[in-house]
């Protein structure tokens, strides 16, 4: 898993260099891309951190790059750098899910703070995503009968009622129940309900 990095996409070398220098001065690792095309081709599923996109660029515009990212399902937070006349464009981008936009010339440390915030939110989102994924994996291990039993346990039924409803022996219900608790990594029905409630 690669390190969280700020990806600076700007066609102006001076801006790229200066922003990288600024981020480094705050101890944030940054990677500069000279165009939207270059960034998109260098992007992988492991890429983490956030994206700083200049709206006005030769070739692909910042807005187009953002659209491509959304199209690929990449959920990295995106910060737009805009000139004076580009505010409406940036607002439209915000509505599509961009993290924020910053007008040039910018207050540099504020920009860095926003970048860090974005990276933190990305980290949090990523963690949550991982937890979700592990839960889904655990549910996937259950057999069909075990899943039926789990549904009824979550509905608050006693073993006896479950056995009657599914037309099986109480003993069998208890075995299934033990398997469910084991596979889901919980010790009680309350814990199971708490785990699944987050998902719903």
């Amino acid at each position, binding site marked *: 898993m690669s390190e969280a990095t700020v990806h600076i996409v700007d066609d*102006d070398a*001076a*801006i790229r*260099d*200066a*922003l990288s*220098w*600024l981020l*480094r*001065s*705050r101890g944030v690792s940054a990677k500069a891309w000279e165009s939207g095309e270059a960034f998109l081709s260098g992007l992988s599923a492991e890429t983490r951190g956030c994206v700083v996109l200049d709206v*006005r660029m030769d070739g692909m515009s910042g807005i187009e790059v953002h659209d491509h990212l959304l199209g690929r399902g990449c959920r990295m937070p995106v910060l737009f*750098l805009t*000139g*004076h*006349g580009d505010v409406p464009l940036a607002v439209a981008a915000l509505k599509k899910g961009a993290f924020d936009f910053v007008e*040039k*010339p*910018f207050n*540099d*440390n504020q920009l860095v703070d926003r970048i860090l915030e974005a990276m933190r939110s990305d980290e949090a989102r990523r963690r949550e995503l991982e937890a979700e994924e592990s839960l889904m994996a655990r549910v996937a291990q259950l057999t069909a009968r075990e899943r039926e039993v789990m549904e009824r346990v979550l509905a608050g039924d006693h073993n006896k009622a479950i056995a009657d409803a599914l037309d099986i022996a109480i003993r069998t219900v208890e075995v299934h129940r033990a398997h469910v608790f084991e596979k889901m990594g919980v010790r009680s029905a309350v814990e199971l309900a708490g785990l699944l409630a987050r998902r719903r």
Partner: protein
Amino acid sequence: VKELAESSGRMPALLPADGARGRARSAAPGWPWYVPWLSLALLVAALLGALWVLQLQDIEENRSGLIRDSLWVEQNIQFSLDRGLEQLRQLAEAPEGGDLDQRQLELRVKHLLANAPGLVEIVLLAPDGALRASAPTPLSVPPGGSWISPSDEPAYRLARGTGNASYAPPHASASERQFEVFVPYYRGGQLAGMVVGVYGLKSILSGLVPWWLAEKHRVTIRDSNGNVVAAKSNVEAEGFPELTHQAPLDPPGHGLLLHVESYGSKANLLRNVLAATIVGLAAAVLWSLWALRRHIQRRLDTEQALGEAHAFRKAMEDSLETGMRAMDHEGRIVYVNPAFCRMVGYSEAELIGHGAPQEYWPPEERRHIAEALRASRAAGTPRVPIELELVHRSGERFDVLIYEAPLVDDRGRQTGWMASVLDITERKRARERVRHQEEKLAATARLVAMGEMASAIAHELNQPLSAIASYATGCLNMLQAGTAAPSEICEALQKTTQQAQRAGRIIRRVHEFVRKSEPSRSRMRLNAVVEAAVGLAEADARKRRVRIVPQLSREDPELLADPLLLQQVLLNLVRNGMDAMSETPRELREITITTEPAASTVTVRVMDRGCGISPEVQRQLFEPFFTTKAEGMGMGLNICRSILEVHQGRVWAEPNPRGGTVFAFSLPLEPA
């Protein structure tokens, strides 16, 4: 006929547009048309009747004349025969009468024959009937024969028996038909002999029918078989006689008839000629009436066609949307069509005969309109439409285009001017709207372009400025954190410098771009520039009812300047003046332009009569982006000042003593 033709010639002018047709139709077969025909027929009938009556009377008169004449002839003959008989008796009863010998008889007879017309021979007979003597022709009887012919025998016997005179039937002789009358005479109671008178029928007629009667009639004596035995006439007997009358001639009797025939006279011929003349004249009158009627019919048709054409033309004129107006040489209106009346709101009666200035000329434009009309009518002027503003009776103004053309009558004489008047208010308004729209669009486009440029420049400058800020902040961060390595700081500062230089280059580039439009100076005359600017502003001025009055100095100074830029200055000042006068009453809207050359400078003044300028406005007057107009950009006067500064001149504003503002600028004169 001439009068009729004239009156019908005048008619179309009096005819109303419609209904003329119907009246012309109904007039043709009205009562005046059969009255002359009827009276003419009656006249001819009366004339012919009179002739016929005359003819009847004439015939009657002829008949009575004929009868009178024939009776007269008959009586004359009888009287003559009676007298002859008397003389024969006297001869017989004279003492020696019957015994006269041949020679004595001849003497007596000569006297007797002279007094008895028709008596051709006297014969003396012995009592036994033997011939004793005869005169004037001595007769002889062959021996054993008797002088008395067998046809005479009955008469002879009758005379002997009765002792009275007796007439014998006529018989033919050598020269003519003759008859005898036997007159017995007695001596002492004894038949002593007979005196026989021989009458010739022809001789009777020639002796007893007078010439004047013979001139008129043919008189004949006919026997019982109807054969003509004697005739006298001086008239040509051709064909059948017109009238005849006959009476028995007795004595001598024996079926003799006196027959008088009358043949047509010369008077008759005259009458026939007269009748023929009357009929001929009547025919001539009929023919001429018919011809006249046909002529009138043709005239009516023509008139009707003319009336229809007139009505059609009138309908066309009435339905025309273009106004028509004719004026005579004195400028009096002689004709207007309804469209024109509608345009100006005055009735035809109010307009006709009205001279200049017309009611529909706006009061302040009257002189201008009169001059424009005079100019367009001047000989040799090409016929171009005049654009004028007129005023409706309600006070509403409207724009028209007038096409003037000489009005020439049918004798080729110009009697005035004809004008077609086109209301172009709507068209002009639409054009104005379009122009306004275009101006606004152009202004917007300029603004957009300026915005684009400003945005581009801002973006260009933002890049180096952002970079500089980032480097500086980064350096500060490092210095504050105490992690700064001098080499890193140094590098960042170097990059900062580069970016500052980059920003400087951008600004220089913009400046160079703006400075590209340097004025191109040339030697030029000031008045020409002023006139050109006035020409450019003229259209706008007319639209806004503003008069531009250039009062240029005779002395026309020469300048070294950019004429287009100076024109721009003048145009801006004139436009400002017109804008300032939008609330000024029309008659005061005037912009005066003066030029005042001095020793080293020339001053141009543009004076308006507008609202004037307040002192606080005057202070900011020439600042860029300062404007008092809703749509202004606030660049006009600023541009003027820039242009004049380039030309080493200056511009200022001062109040107009007559109200309004004076914008003045001065330019240095080239040293001669």
